[in-house]
Structures are given as C-alpha cells and as structure tokens.
C-alpha cells in the first residue's frame, strides 16, 4: 500500500550469544519480520557485558533505524543510550527485562515482557499455596541481576528469607547436576527446587532422577525447553513459568510496523508472562519447545 | 680416498644478511678437518647446513658420493652425522641420562610393548661420563645443575657415543678446563683413528694443530684457503684465521700464537 516500505528495526538483547533461550527471540523476530515485510536485525553483546550492550544501542541509534527493540537489563546502564535514541526520534519498545515504569521513564512506547521479580513472586505465592516452606534456587547465571531477582521474588513470595538457598551453579551441566546433588544431600529437608532456565533445569532433572527425588520434591522452573516440557509431562516438574519470549520478540515488531505505517498503537503494556505451564495442554508447547516456545 | 661429504658452493642468506657466499669443502673419513676463522665468519652456519639445521640457499651437498638433502637434523643423524652444536643441545630440566639418550632412547620390550630402558640408559651414561673425567652425582641429576663445562662434556660424550660416520664439533673445547680439553682432544684423536671423519671448529690454533689433519679457514662467508698438516706453521695459520688483518700487539709476553 506504499506506506513505509523499507522499515528497519533493530532488536538488542543483553544475552551472551551462546545463551540458548534467546534463540526463541531470534526466531520470533525473524518470523515477524517476514510476516510484516520489514527488516529486523538482532544484536547482542557477545560476552553478555551490559556496558558493551550500551554501546550497541548507541551503534543501533547511529544506524538510524525506524525503531529499536531492547531489553532493559540494567536501568542505570541502559537508560542513557535508550533515552538518547528516543530523543533523536527513534521509536523504542522495551522487551523482556525491566519494568513498565522504567520503560515509561526512558520514553519507550511500551513494555512487552515479564517483570522478573514479579514473576518470581507469583511463583513463590503459588508454591506457598502448595505447602512449600524451603527451597533451593539453582542460579546458573549468578552475576546477572535478573536471575537473582527471580530467586529473591520467589523467596519473598514464599514469605521466607533467601539466605543460602540460592547456589551459584555454574554453566557446566555435570557441575550443576552434582552441585544440586551435593546441596540436597546436605539439606535433605528441602521442600522445593527452582531452576531459572533450561541450562540449570536439564541437569537438575537428571540429578533428581539419580537421587530418587524426581516427582517427590516440588520442582518449578522458569522458561521452557525440550527437557523441561518432558519433565512437566512425566510429573518431575510441577510447573514451568513461560514468559513466552516469542511474543516478546514478535509483538514489538508488529506493533512498531503498524505504528510506523498506520499510526496505531495499543494503549497498554503487554505482559507476555508469567504463564504457568502445567501438565495439561502440552502438545503445542512440546512441538515448538526451544524454537518458538 | 673418496670424500664422505662434499660441500659444493654452499651459500646461505638470512634475510638481507649473506652468512655464506659460496663455500666448497670436502671431508674425508679418518681425517680431522679443522674449520677455522674469525667470529662471524660463518663456521657455525656452514656446519648447520651440513647437519640439516639450515637449508642452503644455493649449493649442493654430496654424502658418500650421492647428492643429499637434509631437511631436518633427524635426517643427518639417520645418515650417520653426529653434531655438537655451539649453542648446546641440552634440556636443563631433564636428567643427564635422559638427555644423553634423547632421540636415541634404548628400548626394552615388555609383553610386546616397547618401553624406555632406564637401567641401561643410566648405566651407560654414568660410564661414559666417567670416561670423560666427570663424576656425576647420579644419572638422574638434572642437566641444569651442571656447570657449563660439564654440560659441554655431556654433549660431546653423547655425540661420540652415537656418532657413526661423521662427527662435527663446533668449538667443543671453548668452555672446557685443561683436563677436559685434553680428554676431548684425545677422544677426537681416537675417533679419527677408527675411520670416522671429524669436523672440528676452534679458535685455538694449538688445539687445531694438535689434532687437525687438514685446515680450512673461512673469512666473511668465503673460503680463505685449505692446507694439509705439515704444510703450514702455527703462525701462518693464525694469520689466516685473523683474516689477514693485523693483530693488536701486547707489550708483554704474548709472543707467537694466541
């Protein structure tokens, strides 16, 4: 229809490029770009350094795209470059991390995502309802603030102190597995396990299978993956919190494209999560886990 | 008599430096051939082309009458050339006996598998070193704890022990004491008598005269001349070694040869 034919958007994430979860986001933007007929580029700091990410946002602004979609992993670091981009007239949508308030503060159009602390808190409340009184948080990315927020939110939701219940698990599956085993061995009265993504969930499933606690101990996890879905199916995992990264990537592209073309904009932020995925209704999740789920 | 090695018109360039500008020398079995010359004349470079460390830029090497190309010291060792380099080939952290047998490890078969025969190695090492006049504390002493002269002796003993047809010694006596020097010269003499061709580099005219059968002087990368024993006096030889330039004279007693 001739409106805004050559639209270009850039999505900037904070994830190191080996982080498997972000793959769904890449697939989401690719699909949205194709469907909307726009170009979407994906960029991220290779080592996950947020200061590098700030430079990438500056770089993105210098490239003069029609819009930027970015995470707000650390408000202090990223607010400057994002505001600068907004100030020069680039439309910005915040996705994944940060809060709706922060998004408003930097002048973004909207926020699409799942506030991490809130998601952890909701999960904690749910677990408290199920009678959980103590837990183990398997943090495979200890230096990232959002990981810690999830654990903290969960503890607060349970109404207990986080204390020593969060372990720095590292990224190696064997080490994660054996650290979980070691912790549970030393603290056999632990009621629940919380993992923060496939990286920590997959080895934890194996650990629980090995020490016989699979299905016995309360097990919740953030984010989905093939093994997590299988775990939910066979009852090892009670629930997975799906923040639907696909939507976090897909929707902003659609919103921006329509905004640029027709000036239409939803009136509110979009919470893509937390959605609790349980054993009921798993087929679609199963089919697309790791790709679109 | 057939020469065992013929070096024909050897040239060697290092980048913009011409270290050898065409050197032709023949080496005969049973003879001790002394290579003499000023510092930087190219002696070490020359014998390194013989032992496969450097590939000559131009020129030909004939070994036992056949053209030969050594790509690696391994090849020359396999052909029967043993070399004692000026920059020593010893591993300081390894024991004397491991160093002695480096590259020639004795093998003992156990259940069909080939193992390093440490007992044999230790025994031979101690014996050979004693023959050279060095009493080791033990075969497992690290080479790094030996004095410079002691290391030199290990290198020479090793080359003599494994040397087959040609033995090249690059300034072997320079770091040695009087007694060790006498031993090395006696060894050279003995080896030569066994029909082995010895190439001997030295700056000491007297050492050269003592064991040499033939003398070749290098000067600035070229052959300055070759002489047989008896054809030349120590004083003449010394003048040639200094490249024909005048020597600084001492008022004192340093008459004659240095």
């Amino acid at each position: 229809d001739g409106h805004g034919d050559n639209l270009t958007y850039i999505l900037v994430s904070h994830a190191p490029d080996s982080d498997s979860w972000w793959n769904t986001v890449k697939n989401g933007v690719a699909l949205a770009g194709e469907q909307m007929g726009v170009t979407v580029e994906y960029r991220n700091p290779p080592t996950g350094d947020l200061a590098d990410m700030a430079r990438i946002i500056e770089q993105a602004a210098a490239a003069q795209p029609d819009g930027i979609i970015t995470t707000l992993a650390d408000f202090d670091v990223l607010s400057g470059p994002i505001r600068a981009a907004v100030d020069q007239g680039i439309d910005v949508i915040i996705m994944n991390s940060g809060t709706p308030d922060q998004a408003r503060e930097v002048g973004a159009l909207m926020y699409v995502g799942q506030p991490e602390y809130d998601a952890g808190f909701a999960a904690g409340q749910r677990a408290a309802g199920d009678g959980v009184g103590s837990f183990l948080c398997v943090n495979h990315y200890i230096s990232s603030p959002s990981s810690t927020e999830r654990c903290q939110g969960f503890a607060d939701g349970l109404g207990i102190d986080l204390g020593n219940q969060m372990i720095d698990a590292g990224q190696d599956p064997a080490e994660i597995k054996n650290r979980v085993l070691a912790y549970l061995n030393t603290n056999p009265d632990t009621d629940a396990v919380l993992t923060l993504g496939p990286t920590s969930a997959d080895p934890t499933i194996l650990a629980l299978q090995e020490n016989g606690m699979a299905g016995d101990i309360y097990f919740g996890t953030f984010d989905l993956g093939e093994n997590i879905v299988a775990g939910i199916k066979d009852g090892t995992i009670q629930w997975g919190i799906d923040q639907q990264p696909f939507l976090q990537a897909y929707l902003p592209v659609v919103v921006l494209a329509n905004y640029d073309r027709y000036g239409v904009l939803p009136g509110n932020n979009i919470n893509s999560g937390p959605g609790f995925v349980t054993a009921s209704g798993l087929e679609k999740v199963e089919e697309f886990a790791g790709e679109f789920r | 008599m057939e020469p065992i090695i013929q070096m024909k018109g050897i040239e060697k360039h290092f980048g913009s430096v011409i270290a050898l500008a065409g050197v032709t020398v023949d080496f005969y079995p049973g003879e001790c051939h002394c290579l003499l010359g000023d510092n930087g004349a190219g002696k070490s470079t020359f014998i390194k082309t013989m032992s496969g460390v450097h590939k000559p830029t131009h020129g030909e090497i004939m070994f036992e009458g056949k053209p030969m190309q050594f790509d690696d010291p391994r090849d020359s060792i396999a052909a029967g050339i043993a070399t004692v380099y000026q920059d020593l080939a010893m591993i300081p952290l390894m024991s004397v006996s491991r160093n002695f047998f480096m590259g020639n490890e004795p093998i003992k078969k156990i259940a069909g598998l080939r193992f390093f025969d440490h007992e044999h190695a230790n025994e031979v090492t101690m014996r050979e070193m004693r023959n050279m006049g060095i009493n080791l504390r033990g075969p497992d002493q690290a080479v790094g704890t030996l004095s410079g002269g002691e290391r030199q002796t290990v290198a020479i003993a090793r080359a003599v022990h494994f040397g087959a047809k040609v033995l090249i010694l690059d300034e072997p006596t320079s770091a040695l004491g009087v007694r060790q020097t006498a031993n090395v010269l006696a060894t050279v003499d003995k080896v030569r008598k066994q029909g082995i061709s010895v190439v001997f580099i030295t700056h000491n005219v007297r050492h050269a005269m003592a064991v040499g059968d033939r003398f070749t002087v290098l000067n600035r990368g070229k052959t300055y001349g070759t002489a047989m024993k008896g054809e030349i006096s120590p004083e003449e030889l010394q003048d040639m070694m200094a490249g024909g330039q005048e020597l600084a004279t001492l008022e004192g007693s340093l008459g004659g040869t240095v």
Partner: protein
Amino acid sequence: MTDTSSTDERVKEMSGLRRAMIRPELGGMVGVVAVFTFFLLFAFDSGMFNMQGVMNWTTVSAQFMIIAVGACLLMIAGEFDLSVGSMIGFAGMMIAIFGVVLGWPMWIAILITFAICIAFGALNGYIVVKTGLPSFIVTLATLFILRGFTIFIPQTVESKTIIGGIREAAEGDWLAPLFGGKVGGPIFQWLGDNGWISTFTRGNLEGQPVIDGIPMLIIWAIALVIFGHIVLTRTRFGNWIFAAGGDAQAARYAGVPVDAVKIKMFMFTAFCATVFAVCQVMEFGSAGADRGLLKEFEAIIAVVIGGALLTGGYGSVIGAALGALIFGVVQQGLFFANVESSLFRVFLGVILLLAVILNTYIRRLITGER
C-alpha cells in the same frame, strides 16, 4: 651407581626418605591430604563422605581428570590449548547434528566427531609449529572460531542452540554406552541387597542402593590417567615429550621430531576434550552451544596444581590427576560444607596460588634449578 654419587664430597647428605618423598607429585599429594583433612573436619556429617557424596565428587573430579590428562601432556610438551572448552561445546554439537538432526547412526556420529575434533587439534598444532607462534595466541583464535561455529551452525540448521534427543537417538547403539553407560550395576545391587551399602530412604527409588553403577566417565578418567602416565614416564615418546617442552631447539638438534610430538599432543588434547564431550552429551542427552565454557582454564589449573611447569618440560600425569581431584573435592566440598557459593572463586584462587608456590619449591629441590 650409588658409590659414584657418594664420592662427591661437595654434596651434602640427603636421607633416603627425603629423596623418595621429593617427587613432582608431592605437591599434589600434600594438597590432597590437606583438602581431605579440611573437609573431614568441617563437613564430615554433611553427607560428603557417604557413598552418594563420594560418588558425587568423584564424578566431578573424573571430569576434570579427563581434560587434565590431555592438558598435562600438552603442557609438558611446551604448549597449551585454550580451545579445549570450545572444543567440548563443538564436539557435543557435532554429535547432535550428525546423530539427531541428520539422523545418522550414533556410532558413526561419534566416530566422525572424533575425527573432526582431532583434525582441529592437529590444525592447532600445525599452525603452532609451522609459524612458531605462541600456542596461547593460536588457540585463543581457535577458541573464538570454534565457539562461533558452535553457535552459528545449530542456529542456522535448526534455529535453536540446544539440541536434545541424543539419548533417544543413541538407544541400542553399540558405541554410545562406552561413553554414557554405567558399569557394575549388578554388583551394587547385590551389595545393596545385602546391606553392605546404604539404600535410598525417600523418594521413588526407596530401597534401591544409592549407587547403581560406576559411570563410564570415571572409567575413562582412570584409563586415560594410566595411559598418560605410562606413555610419559616409560616410553621413548615420553622422553620426547619432555624434550620438546624443555627446549624445542635443543631437542630438534638431537633428532627428536619435535613438530610431530607437539602436533600429536594437540591431537591428544582434542581427543580428551572429545571424550569429555561425548560422555557429557550421552549423560545429559542434549548438546548446547554454551557447553564447556572456561573448561580450558579448569584443565590448566588442575595441571598446574598437580605440579607441571606452565612453560613446559616438567610435570606428571599423576600430579595432574591429583590436581583434578583437589579441584573436584574443593568445588563440591564447599557445597557440602554450606559455604556461600560465590566465595568458591576466592577459594579456588587461593588454593591455586598456594599450590603453585609449594610446587615451585618442590621442583627447585628436585631439579636444583638455578
């Protein structure tokens, strides 16, 4: 022989015991004793020393051992390999691509992966020996290149960075159990039935023995350590490894095929990394683009704690194995002892420092280094 050494009046007496004690492995042994004493005192009732606990830190240590053996021999040969971690990720991913995405029989996938990875190791070695560049730089480049491919390939062909389903694909394969299986299951069952070893008291495995077999990972670790130790100390090739690392030029002069030795050691390191990777994907059933991150440092640390000299020419496989054991025990022990886990890095750094200082002292005693 002894009489010769005793004739030198310039050597002070050294007792036989002291002489027997002073070995490259001594530092590692002291470390092991220290570490175990520490945890026996502070974490005895934490379950660290019951069957399950022992299996726990043994497995972690075995993992370190597998890569430490390769790193140790390579380091003694005078080089090191920073691409081990990336190689682990890459190897796992290749198995997933061949075995799951392309659906080839698992044994073919495994063998081809071994071939590719060993070829990469050979390439590392070839570049190092031909250009004379420090291996730090060359393998740093390979680190980036391999990791880049490990992320890029699965993303391009499958649009994901974790590929699962490997366990299913390996079912019924003849080669896969050699990496992912467990041995001795019946024995443990029998032991458990007779009450010789404890059984689970909770959960859905209640009544079964806490250990259901020894993972092949541990068998591989032991086999590689023995193999490496014998090659290094008892063979001609072992002498060449020492020589190549002690002084490459000198070794070359003496007729040691230094380049070949170094290239072979790079290949062996790649082999060990691949063994690690295959065991891992077989156990966990998936390959991820972020597997093996920083493993190269862990291998180097274990080797150095075990008494090897970073600059080559000195070290011991047994020492490296002890280093790996220390590393594994400390890492898991801190969890058993309930120490704040972010302090693990601080501990690791301190232990590393203490270990190398001790080892340097011992090495000076042995070699009489100047």
